[in-house]
């Protein structure tokens, strides 16, 4: 079987990929996305298992993984940037900020 990509996109609706190895800032990663090979240059280091953006995600929009929203952005996220608790907040299980 062919060598797997260093990052996985689970669903074609997703706007994030998951790194399956630690990835350095500035690396260009090839991911299988919507049936094509997409090259994404990383703007931050991505720890193993963490996510990076496949496209620009504007402030306040949905982050999509498994084809479903997993939260919304609290800051604009650039393509190739680390997507995690510092720039994403859950839609659920908490009071909306006033």
């Amino acid at each position: 079987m062919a060598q797997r990509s260093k990052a996985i996109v689970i669903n074609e609706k997703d706007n994030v990929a998951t790194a399956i190895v630690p990835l350095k800032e500035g690396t260009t990663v090839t991911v299988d996305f919507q049936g094509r090979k997409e090259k994404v240059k990383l703007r931050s280091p991505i720890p193993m298992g963490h996510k990076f953006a496949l496209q620009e995600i504007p402030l306040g929009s949905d982050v999509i993984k498994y084809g479903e929203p997993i939260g919304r952005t609290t800051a604009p996220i650039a393509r190739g940037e680390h997507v995690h608790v510092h720039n994403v907040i859950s839609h659920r299980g908490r009071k909306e900020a006033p």
Partner: protein
Amino acid sequence: MEFQGYRRPNGKVGTRNTVLVIPSVVCSQGAAEAMTRNLKGTVYLPNVFGCAQVGADREQTKRTLVGFGANPNVFSVLVVGNGCENLPAKEIAEAIVPSGKRVEWIEIQEVGGTKKTVAQGKKILREMLADAAKEKREPLPVGELILGTECGGSDYTSGLASNPAVGEASDLLVRAGGTVILSETTELIGAEHLLAKRARTPEIGKKVLDLIAWWENEAIKTGQDIRGANPAPGNIAGGITTIEEKSLGCIYKGGTTTLEEVISYAHPPTQRGLVLMDTPGHDIDQLTGMMAGGCQIAVFTTGRGTPTGSPIAPVIKITGNALTAKKMRDNIDVDVSAILKGKETVKEAGKRIFDEIIAVASGKLTKAEKLGQRDFCIFKIGLNF
């Protein structure tokens, strides 16, 4: 398809043949521990409740203890009380009797102190062990198994590898006529719409949505961000950002079959196939609830690694994280990290898990059993008064 198990007087099937000591109250836990010490084949429940409880809270503690006694993995039961608790040993013992097994009860105040109670308990346990030794495993239908599913110490590999592989195994068991329990209701927040769509009837689907709404509202009522507890700090370090992300990875464990029923905590399923038990995300609370509901074996996926086991049932630990499989090899039973390396498909790993379930149900010991890991924790829903 068959496994080698024990047929009980009420027709249910067991994967283990344990003699169980149930302290009806925390005060008799010491005596229960002492009488099972060095008595191979016996085990006691580290129960810390059983007194000063009222209403639904008392009922839930009782139902859980009775459920453990009635579980078909248990051959016979000794209930040990102190004597003045409001959940008396006799009441618990009598509720286990309908399962058809031998049930005895003793009280420390009645017998006259700990030493005498331990001596009398040991005498009863030795008799029970002698009878238990006469039981033989026989070929039994796999369809009579109730499999508990759980994930704990999750990381990114849980949603990408181990949970989808367990989902395959769940589908194989359901197709063989068996029952699979999906639980940890809080870890369905954000994925409930997907599960509700798979419900047998619109009513069952609505139950799923209502349950999740209740838990979410409880979280909101605390005024806190649920992220303080769920995802846990380890989940976040492992790459999980929100409860929705954790939940979407979590529901893979239930496979793809129809959701047949929603049951409350520590209640036995009344349908075969996939059922949802309402439990917290807390690993041991939910494991305890499923065992009390009659589950005879469980699969537990973990990314970060966890030692969890149960006093009465085997818990098969599965990881999709290669580092964890190596670092915590004395806790992990099945390594499915080849999925992320592209060396094994989810389907192949699922079949391997299913085969392990049959082997363990037939007597193969899990790592948690070898380590004597016997976690027990009742989901408490009220104050002690």
